[in-house]
């Protein structure tokens, strides 16, 4: 079973992702801050991170940069509320870039695609 870390500062959004991904058989862990994220990444074996670009006062893009440096084998699906078209080239570091929507199917699709690409499907 793949283990996915969902990083988002909105508990109800995390709930949606946890339900959707959980129903598909993934084990979902949650983090709402940068500190919590790296605590979990250092402690647990994670196969993929679903990362929100904005984490209250902290930036998801900083988290993305640190993950690609310190945990380069873990793929990241970057989420944002709006199309932020090429505004920050850091976002290109992510394996996938999705716009949050009330239809979570796209997230599911991307998670599956990225995991299979990285050969992480267990």
């Amino acid at each position, binding site marked *: 079973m793949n283990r996915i870390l969902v990083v988002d500062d909105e508990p109800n959004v995390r709930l*949606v992702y946890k339900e959707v991904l959980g129903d598909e058989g993934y084990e979902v862990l949650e983090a709402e801050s940068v500190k919590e994220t790296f605590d979990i990444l250092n402690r647990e074996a994670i196969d993929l991170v679903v990362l929100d670009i904005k*984490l209250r006062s902290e930036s998801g893009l900083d988290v993305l940069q640190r993950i690609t440096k310190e945990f380069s084998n873990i793929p990241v699906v970057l989420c944002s*509320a709006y*199309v932020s078209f090429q505004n920050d080239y850091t976002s290109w570091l992510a394996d996938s870039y999705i716009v949050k*929507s009330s*239809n979570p*199917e796209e997230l599911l699709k991307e998670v599956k695609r990225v995991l299979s690409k990285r050969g992480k499907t267990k």
Partner: protein
Amino acid sequence: MAKFGENYCWTIKDDPSVCPFIKPGEEHLLGDLERRNREKCIECEELRNDLKKMADEKGNFFQAFQTILDESSKREQTIIRYGRSLEIKEEMFDMLVHLSTSLKLVLDVDEILYKGLVAFTMGSSFGFNRAIALLAGNKKLKGYFAIGPKDQEEALFIWKELTEKNLTVQDLLRFSPHIFSKEKEKFSKILERLEFNLSEELFKNVFKAETILRVSPEDEMPSALRDFYRGTPFWVIPFFSHLKRLLGVILLDNFLTRKEVSSEEMRVMEIFATEISLALERGLTYEELEEKVGTLEEANVKLKEHQELIMKLRAEASIGEMVLQLTHSFKNPVIAIGGLAWVLKKKTTAENTNTKYMDAILEEAVKLEKTLKDFVNFVKTRYLSGKSPLDINKVVELLYQEKRAKGKLQGVNFHLNLANDLPMILGNEYQLYNCIENIVNNSIEAMPEGGELFLETEAQDGFVLVGIKDTGPGISDEVMKNLFQPFFTTKTIGSGLGLYTSKEIIEKMGGNIAVSCEREKGCRVTIMLPISEKGGGYEQDFSGG
């Protein structure tokens, strides 16, 4: 017949037959012999002849009489000549006084030149036939104003009119804008042709001498002057500022009367020129000053407007940021509501009566999301627009990649035709992407039964063109008219802000958007974007999470 018997006509009283020079009304001279001798006989040939004969007959005594008579007549001529010269000088002096007084308070260059030229052409002073004023600027002398008749006929007419009206010096020197523009118009073609470099030999000589120069037909001169004066000599009077800067020249000539100018007159002309120079310098300085004050005032107004604009933009930018924050805080709850409804629906069996409520929640969440997206785009366009040089091909290509799959599902085939080596344009990639996306979405929606969609780019006359062409049914004139109005929509789900926002984006970039439609053949939207002249720029980051 001067001798009557033993007497001479000039000694006979009260006999009208002896003197044929006494006219009617002068009968008193018959009896008043002394007065007749003074007024008539002194100039009479008979008296001279009589004296000559008497000198021959009776010797030197009468010879002396004759000599005295001749001398007195010569002296009289001299006195008359002096009198006339004095009269002319008085008139000139009078003229100078009037010119000086009348120029004292004048600041208008037109008026100064008018008075100056009138002074030189007026009959009672120099009475030149024509006068032309040329003003200096940009190392050139340019014809500005001229006065005088064009030919003999007009000259006679003018002289007659002036005599009849019996005008005084003051009358003539009074500035008449009407006459000024009439004379200027009359000479306009000549004035246009009279444009010379200050380095021209003729003018170089004048400036070096700093005095009036007489130019003979055989002297070296620019061809425009030779054509104009056609063998008539003319005089060039230079005008200098107190710092010896050349202000202009006046050209004078007597093409009708062929009159020459005495050295005495030249000296007086120089005095006139000094007066005019002073006034001209004052007038030109005033004109320059006025212009500078005008420029400054204009700059001041612009500065104020600019400041106001900056204030407005700042206020709008903070409004924009605020609204963006607000919509952002709406987005996550909408995602949570929609997402949870989706999860709930998935976990509920189809028979459950609550399914339709979950559907309704989902549908509303989708609508809300769409409205938020449009609203965010609208706000970003309206209030926030960081620009940087960009390659439109990249934007169009990305859009093509993104939309192709969606289009295919609906039977719309995408065709991409990008021009090579397109120049950069200055804009906001995010905005442009949204703008073209709006149009592409409309085109796709216009072809529910499928069709072809062409995306093209090309460079043309300082613009980069993006064409979006579909093979849909086209649109009605009514729709066409309102296409770019805010909150206009034909869709059931839509805010009506999409195309309006697109137009705003393009126009803010200094571009243009045009739509042409043909019934049953489809529409073509052409976006024209100005080519960026310089690189650089900045980019604002509005990424949201």
